[in-house]
């Protein structure tokens, strides 16, 4: 399969990239790791006339601490996330989720920025970012802004990103030391998107949940932030009856498609199962 023709651009600064995207408008697409876009181009489901490769922009690389936040450059790969000692120590859910993204070869090339900006509801990182309360740093011709992950996703492949804007970094407030976390993903095989998946971050205080945040993957047109389910478990010991109520609240906000991964009602139930497992695992890891 061979993609349609396009012109290739490799800018070395964010400003040059934005200028190219603004000049070519709807005909241009930014290229990150390319492991979503290139397969779409090979199927001719995407036919951009201009590709703006972001790989030559040094500012989009690197993982750094800024105050109480960790800032991850958009072009940081899943492989680099898996190998980061800083992230393993401060936000270990990222390593757990990254290892469940695609396969080793894709993780060497696939980027965090591409994963969150593409708007594919099957991608794993958006729900993790909603769970963590991350903000996306965005730069366009009219300047910079930060879009909360929880407000970014509008529909399948529809996001708050404007056509001439580039997502340049992901800013994540570091969760409290001793927090518990889990990303539980049900999939048919390695490399598959989730049938359903749940991201959980909790802090515990004397055996009860002090704070909780929950994200759900691939059970609606967008990733979901399960605010009500998290509210239900907060203040509880995660006893069976409370978890059951939280699972019901999470299932209630899902609206998955019936597809090869199973009928919609099954995928909704699996979202609940993943949430219950993630809550138990997160509690066990909290200290």
């Amino acid at each position: 399969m061979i993609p349609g023709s396009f012109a290739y651009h490799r800018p070395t600064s964010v400003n040059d990239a934005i200028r190219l995207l603004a000049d070519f408008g709807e005909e241009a697409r930014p290229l990150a790791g390319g492991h979503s876009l290139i397969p779409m181009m090979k199927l001719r489901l995407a036919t951009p006339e201009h590709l703006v490769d972001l790989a030559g922009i040094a500012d989009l690389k690197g993982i750094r601490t800024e105050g109480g936040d960790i800032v991850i450059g958009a072009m940081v790969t899943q492989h680099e996330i898996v190998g980061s000692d800083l992230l393993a120590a401060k936000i270990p859910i990222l390593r757990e989720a990254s290892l469940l993204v695609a396969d080793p070869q894709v993780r060497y090339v696939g980027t965090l920025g591409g994963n969150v900006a593409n708007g594919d509801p099957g991608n794993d990182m958006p729900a993790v970012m909603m769970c963590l309360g991350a903000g996306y740093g965005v730069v366009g011709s009219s300047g910079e802004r930060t879009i909360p992950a929880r407000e970014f996703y509008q529909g399948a492949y529809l996001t708050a990103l404007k056509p001439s804007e580039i997502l340049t970094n992901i800013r994540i407030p570091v969760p409290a030391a001793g927090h518990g976390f889990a990303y539980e993903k049900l999939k048919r095989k390695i490399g598959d998107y989730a049938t359903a998946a749940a991201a959980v971050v909790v802090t515990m205080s004397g055996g009860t949940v002090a704070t909780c945040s929950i994200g759900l993957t691939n059970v609606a047109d967008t990733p979901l932030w399960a605010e009500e389910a998290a509210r239900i478990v907060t203040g509880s010991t995660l006893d069976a009856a409370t978890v059951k109520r939280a699972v019901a609240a999470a299932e209630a906000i899902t609206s998955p498609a019936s597809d090869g991964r199973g009928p919609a009602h099954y995928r909704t139930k699996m979202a609940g199962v993943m949430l219950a497992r993630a809550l138990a695992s997160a509690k066990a890891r909290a200290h």
Partner: protein
Amino acid sequence: MAKSHVSMTVNGKAAEGLVEPRTLLIHFLREQLNLTGPHIGCDTSHCGACTVDLDGKSVKSCTMFAVQANGADIRTIEGMAAADGTLHVLQDAFREMHGLQCGFCTPGMIMRAYRLLEENRNPSEEEIRFGISGNLCRCTGYQNIVKAIQYAAAKMNGVPFKEAAE
């Protein structure tokens, strides 16, 4: 569409050519450099038959444009054996342990195993299985591929190869 000039190091030698931007790296390797070891299997970034080593990473060359690899250092299965024909320890291991049947997945499998062992000299069976999970084999059931990688790791570490009890 105007062609772009690309140059890269492939198997230790300088290589260059003119490509359309849409030319995939696998097509550049196979059709312009005549390196037909990397295979086109699924053509959808699932099977790993097109895996090559690029700047210290295992990549699926069917999902990368040749222009993206401009300036890169690439190794394919053709670059594994020594100039005198002596097989690389991984190639020898796949032969000794019968790590292939039809052989179609083998170039990608060996290139992936090469990077896996570069990053982890002594992987467990589970780490090997996870490490090659982006490479599909439809013949072997993977048992002897895993065994071949364990055998190669033992040889590289200079320790005797011990087959796990069935």
